[in-house]
């Protein structure tokens, strides 16, 4: 128990110290995507629903938050909230439709609806089309912390991440989380016990969309812009990859997965040029064929085996 607490403390300490030796913008980017993947994992790993359209929420929040900060001049906190809320609303709309189907159909429906959202962003005037919404001011936190300083912003982003991470952890280990687990295990049985399964799935979907939105809005704040790539289906695919690579249904899997992918993308950009999609694709294939448990899952399994052996031997 306390060992777990210790581990969390160590991680937090690492998070606090990270910008001193790693390029802070990169760490912020990783944090945003980690949050995104964690939110996604809440749906895939703990509810068993594979959404292939999560970029829609990420992108929506980015655009709305960006618009709120730039055009309406809202304070930073409110801008982020506005974006997050918009993603939640969209999540509710998409979710109500998508949960009518399950399994692969669910994946296809979310993908298709997200594509529709993408087209809307492409055509709408407030998004700046292909050019994107650029030059959003970061503003100040609570009116006095200047967020244009990368380090200040870093701790703000870290705080957001820790809060959201805690919320996800809480959700998984809550009465609600128990019901989600039951639904994933045996849906007809859950219905016959009197649970309105659709409502639970919808709430899980909305939660996941909202947090994905928070990630999108935060990312927008870090980079000061929102563009179509934030809502493109490639991103939806990437977040699936991050989650699976790290280990779906594990608390830390998405964090690890997103760190690896973001770092890889950053590094590969110079070295392999156009082969970067091929490499991403290969990682996908290898994960599915050989490491379905993901990095964290495999490590945990290995640990179990070692500990088990020691206990036995």
């Amino acid at each position, binding site marked *: 128990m306390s060992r777990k607490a210790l581990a969390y403390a160590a991680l937090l300490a690492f998070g606090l110290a990270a910008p001193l030796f790693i390029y802070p913008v990169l760490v912020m980017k990783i944090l945003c995507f980690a949050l995104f993947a964690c939110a996604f994992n809440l749906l895939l790993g703990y509810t068993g629903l594979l959404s292939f359209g999560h970029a829609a929420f990420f992108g929506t929040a980015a655009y709305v938050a960006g618009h709120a900060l730039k055009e309406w001049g809202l304070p930073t906190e409110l801008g982020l909230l506005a974006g997050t809320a918009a993603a939640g609303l969209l999540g509710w709309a998409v979710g109500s439709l998508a949960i009518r189907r399950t399994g692969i159909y669910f994946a296809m429906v979310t993908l298709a609806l997200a594509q529709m959202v993408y087209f809307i962003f492409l055509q709408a005037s407030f998004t700046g089309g292909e050019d994107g919404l650029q030059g959003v001011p970061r503003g100040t936190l609570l009116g006095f912390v200047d967020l244009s300083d990368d380090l200040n912003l870093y701790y703000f982003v870290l705080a957001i991440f820790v809060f959201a991470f805690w919320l996800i952890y*809480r959700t998984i280990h*809550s*009465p609600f989380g128990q*019901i989600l687990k039951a639904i994933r295990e045996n849906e007809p*049985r859950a219905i016959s016990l009197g649970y309105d*399964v659709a409502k639970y799935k919808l709430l899980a979907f909305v939660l996941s969309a909202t947090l994905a939105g928070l990630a999108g809005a935060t990312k927008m704040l870090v980079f000061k812009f929102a563009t179509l790539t934030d809502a493109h289906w490639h991103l939806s695919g990437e977040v699936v990859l991050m989650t699976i690579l790290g280990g779906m249904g594990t608390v830390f899997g998405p964090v690890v997965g997103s760190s690896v992918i973001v770092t890889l993308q950053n590094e590969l950009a110079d070295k392999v040029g156009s082969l970067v999609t091929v490499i991403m694709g290969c990682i996908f294939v290898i994960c599915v064929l050989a490491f379905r448990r993901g990095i964290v899952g495999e490590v945990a399994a290995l640990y179990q085996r070692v500990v088990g052996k020691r206990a036995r031997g």
Partner: protein
Amino acid sequence: MIDDYILETDNLVKEFKGFVAVGGVSLKVRRGSIHALIGPNGAGKTTCFNLLTKFLVPTRGTIRYQGIDITRDQPAQIARRGIVRSFQISAVFPHLTVQENVRIALQRKLGNSFHFWRSDRTLARLDGRAHELLAEVGLEAYAQMVAVELPYGRKRALEIATTLALEPELMLLDEPTQGMGHEDVDRVMQLIKKVAAKRTILMVEHNMKVVAGISDTITVLARGSVLAEGPYAEISAHPKVIEAYMGTEHVD
């Protein structure tokens, strides 16, 4: 007195593309009894069950439960009213522990099932009741086992415990002893009898031993309508029932 009957159907009809699977069944289930529904294959028993639990929508007719018309209710709503069915295939949450299985059912009444911000430790207070229920079906020793590891008969028991957790007034059992060995059949029979003490049970069953052993009233369906109704002694002597269903081999 209306309260005598917990469940009444009036002229219930279900057609599948012109084929009448259930054709005007009026069924009255007395409160506190064990009521068996038997009949030849394809008579419409399962279909009847599906109508009662809203897995199918009746073509015509009404269903009244406790005097209330529930013909248009949704499946989950039916469960909340206190009508719970068991499945022919075993229905447990395979990777949850036996105790968690029961707790899922208990949790609903707590009313915090949507509270995603609460810790699941708030569920601990249900453990006591869960153990009581498990004890009732003889599973207390297995509480921490994962359900998937239970032997078949025990899974059935767990399923019944889970169902009991909902404190159903009316339990619908579809062939509860199908595919069970003799010992298990006896165990489940005793179990049904035990839990029937405080509630009503409506079951479909082909095993005459069970039907003869525990049911108070038997309704025989044939070709979608009621052929006969009454206690076992009466039914088993009914010539039409013998011809259509029981055949010459008798259970003594």
